[in-house]
């Protein structure tokens, strides 16, 4: 089962931002350890749309559906220590693209894996944080396990408040080591070569949060990541990627406070990211949300519409030749093509005393045309559209 093809496999992010998770922007002030314990559960249904039948080689059009259970528990563990933890369990089934090639008519043909694939994944993350008067020091460990992919990761991070808490510096480093063990290795040479292969990823993070005025704040971040080892997808046909990848992402997050009436407040969020790597992939991401909250004596209600736009340019070795040169890097993975994607979401949360209930919906559409600029002459039927529906409950004590 392809660790490259799965929509939801091992976690990519061991967050140095674990320290910034769920924190208000007032973390630009010296942070205080949270006092409360929070237990939360969330179930999500992820469903991909069918592949286009007119472009599918073998008539298989069903794509992935995933059922995700998440259990979170955050608690003080000592005077100045706080622990956040997350356990995730996924079950997934469906088919995925093995190859895309361009036929003599100039149309792209999508070859899907023949049979529906079933798999499960379990993932555990722990992140303790020590709070000081002017900052924090934290760590994180994560383990992820599935039939054909094992991952271990660890990281450290910290923050330091400066200039009367007008600015907070953040930094972190993380390391991950993954091991592949493709199923049915007898089916291809690529699977045999990948059996026991490893991948190592090192990531450095630097960021700063700034109080701009009493109603707005800005966070800037820079992440440099280097992966080495087996980076190809053994389940895809003629997938040969370089054995190293250097990535750089620059991000900004802006928050602005608005109040339109008594008992009501809003936060406007604008997030942007610029990304590039030495596979020639360049991408830009823009996300905006308006978080509106109404508060009563024992209850609160929050509604958040979200709009996200993403675009990327293709990797240097992306191509749709049916029989590419075996001596050169090559991949027909749609995720390495030039395309754009638009996501719309609506989140709601109803709180009553210490309880809260959340309901979220998100739809994601990707297409060549949404790239807006770049070479999008080639059809990319392997691009995925999906819907995500989530229901969550949490209790704080």
């Amino acid at each position: 089962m392809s660790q490259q093809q799965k929509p939801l496999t091992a976690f990519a992010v061991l967050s140095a931002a674990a320290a910034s998770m769920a924190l208000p922007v007032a973390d630009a002030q010296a942070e205080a350890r949270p006092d409360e314990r929070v237990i939360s559960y969330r179930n999500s249904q992820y469903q991909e749309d069918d592949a286009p039948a007119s472009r599918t080689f073998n008539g298989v059009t069903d794509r992935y559906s995933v059922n995700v259970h998440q259990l979170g528990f955050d608690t003080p563990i000592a005077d100045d220590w706080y622990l956040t933890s997350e356990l995730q369990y996924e079950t997934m089934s469906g088919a995925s693209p093995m190859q895309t090639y361009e036929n003599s008519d100039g149309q792209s043909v999508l070859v899907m894996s023949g049979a529906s694939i079933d798999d499960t994944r379990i993932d555990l993350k722990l992140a303790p944080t020590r709070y000081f008067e002017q900052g924090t020091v934290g760590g994180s460990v994560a383990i992820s396990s599935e039939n054909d992919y094992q991952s271990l990761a660890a990281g450290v991070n910290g923050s330091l408040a400066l200039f009367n808490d007008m600015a907070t510096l953040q930094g972190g480093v993380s390391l991950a080591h993954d091991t592949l063990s493709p199923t049915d290795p007898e089916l291809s040479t690529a699977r045999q070569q990948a059996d026991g292969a490893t991948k190592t990823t090192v990531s450095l993070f630097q960021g700063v949060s700034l109080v701009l005025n009493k109603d707005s704040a800005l966070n800037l971040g820079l992440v440099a990541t280097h992966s080495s080892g087996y980076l190809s997808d053994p389940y895809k046909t003629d997938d040969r990627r370089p054995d190293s990848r250097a990535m750089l992402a620059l991000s900004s997050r802006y928050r602005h406070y608005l109040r339109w009436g008594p008992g009501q407040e809003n936060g406007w969020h604008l997030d942007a990211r610029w990304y590039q790597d030495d596979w020639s992939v360049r991408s830009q991401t823009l996300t905006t949300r308006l978080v509106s909250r109404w508060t009563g004596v024992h209850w609160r209600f929050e509604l958040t519409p979200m709009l996200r736009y993403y675009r990327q340019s293709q990797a240097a070795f992306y191509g749709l030749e049916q029989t590419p040169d075996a001596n050169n890097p090559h991949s027909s993975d749609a995720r390495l093509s030039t395309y754009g994607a638009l996501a719309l979401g609506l989140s709601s949360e109803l709180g009553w005393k210490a309880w809260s209930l959340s309901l979220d919906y998100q739809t994601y559409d990707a297409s060549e045309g949404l790239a807006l600029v770049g070479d999008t002459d080639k059809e990319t039927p392997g691009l995925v559209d999906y819907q995500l529906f989530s229901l969550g409950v949490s209790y704080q004590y």
Partner: protein
Amino acid sequence: MNKGITRVAAGLLCGSLLLASGCAQVAPWQRGHLGSDVMSWDSNALKRSLDDHIHSSKEASSGGFGAAGGGCGCNG
């Protein structure tokens, strides 16, 4: 690329600190709005975690708001 990363990192750090030192001071008692839940960088950790995971497995890009620890073979 390493030199470029170092320059960008140094520029980000210095520029941010200059910006911070030049910003009008906001007293702690004036920061109530900034502490509101509607202003959180990430309001729901489980939601953010899953959203990030899906996006990083469906797109060629990942990271940006924290150190990416790897551990995912699902990136394009």
